[in-house]
């Protein structure tokens, strides 16, 4: 039995996950908590948020995020990739900056628009 704090929402439910019993989750208040508990012990994932360089815009950094959670083990590799990117303004909110990031199936997308500056 493993104890976890659920990070799906601010409520922070204390979960118990039974690894020997098909990763059965108790202590959750919603189905997303059960899913989190199951995944966290087998293949943990996180949504990555960071910024990339942008040129010719009203700001010099563009906030980006992965469209879905990616394997936790790939976070630093994904950061390296993001830090090598430079996009040109204008940027539309939701614009895809990198497709299928590191083969995860998740895209790196713009968190806001950046007008030309």
């Amino acid at each position: 039995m493993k104890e976890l704090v659920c990070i799906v929402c601010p409520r922070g439910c204390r979960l118990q996950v039974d690894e020997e019993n098909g990763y059965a989750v108790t202590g959750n208040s919603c189905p997303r908590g059960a899913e989190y508990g199951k995944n966290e012990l087998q293949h943990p994932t996180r949504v990555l948020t960071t910024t990339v360089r942008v040129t010719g815009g009203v700001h010099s950094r563009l906030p980006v995020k992965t469209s879905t959670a990616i394997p936790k083990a790939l976070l630093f590799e994904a950061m390296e990739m993001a830090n090598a990117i430079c996009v040109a303004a204008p940027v539309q909110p939701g614009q895809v900056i990198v497709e299928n990031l590191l083969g995860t199936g998740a895209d790196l997308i713009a968190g806001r628009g950046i007008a030309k500056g």
Partner: protein
Amino acid sequence: MATYELIVVGGGPAGLAAACQAWEKGLRHILILERDSELGGILNQCIHSGFGLQRFREELTGPEYAGRFIEMLGDTGVETRLDTMVLQIVPGKDGAPHQVHAVSAKEGYQVLEAQAVVLAMGCRERTRGAISIPGERPSGIFTAGAAQRYLNIEGYMVGRRVVILGSGDIGLIMARRMTLEGAKVLACVELMPYSGGLMRNIVQCLQDFDIPLYLSHTITDIKGHDRVEQVTVSEVGPDRRPIPGTEMVFDCDTVLLSVGLIPENELTRAAGADMDRRTSGARVYENMETSIPGIFACGNVVHVHDLVDYVSAESERAGAAAAAYVQGKRAEATARTLELKNGDGVSYTVPQTVRPDEAGKTVEVFFRVNRVTGPAAIAVRDGEGNSLTGFRRAHLAPGEMEHILLPGNLVRSAKGPVTISIEEDKGGSAR
């Protein structure tokens, strides 16, 4: 003189929600005054996700959450003036319009008039912790939010080896952010025996990256000539004083402070609104009206929230109430009032006072507890000690704001001031 029905001071999440809601309720002459060069407030630098789960049922980043409201505002005729700093609010007497004095490089000094004003100036970071830290005064000491702005908006790394003082959410978020950008975060140091941040942030920002959290510890020395070179961390006793002999030394170049937020209320105080020493914000009624008729307040300028979703909801109440005020639905000065008192375990409530006859179907009450508890009841009692209602919680912590909905009828029939207190289960027995 330009005249509006409503002027909103601040274009962050609180101001945006209040203005949108006032428009929705029928006002057509609304102005937002914002000192930054764009709307969105602090959300613009909060690039992490976790916003909007309550509001939009999805997990958004700060800029995305702000974007939703800015888009909504774009569908209204609400006017905005950016790069404009409000200097003073002069309340009108006996229902006369309020004056708002503001200044901008483009338009110079402006005196504007409005029938109602919504105060939505937000909060700023506490720096007192910095002043009371012994040691030298090198560069490399930042508030966590300032570092967040440098990194996320300006694109500058503020350091490579970091110690964080305080475990507020911004500090935790920055621990992860700096780590992802290649810095080594050596420790997060918290004076209290519990964290001031959300549990989920302890997990996903510290534990995910094996960053140690030292509870009941503080920084007792900072060394460095030009730049921070070393900090000393000591354990503190129950009296929060350092215990000699417990010193740990960290070689680092940066200290981030995440030691609390203070509502930014210079305008509110100068306007003469009654203040609450516990929240450092204006005292408000259930509709977010301050002690000055027609001046409302919402969001972090009233009390510091953990979640922007609650800021939006509270601000919509303020916007709706401001609209009602302009449309002639004003509370009588003689309206009956009911105090909400803080009982055992409760450090403040918002609202502080309810006008029972003005209250709708429910009165939403936000509060914080002053200690960590296990299973407990939130007890609501009238002036004679009779239980009006109660709410169960599996655990309570000062870092997590609580909110309850009191039925309007219950408030209307309550005898004497209503006290909200925490009653912990004894020996784990269910109540």
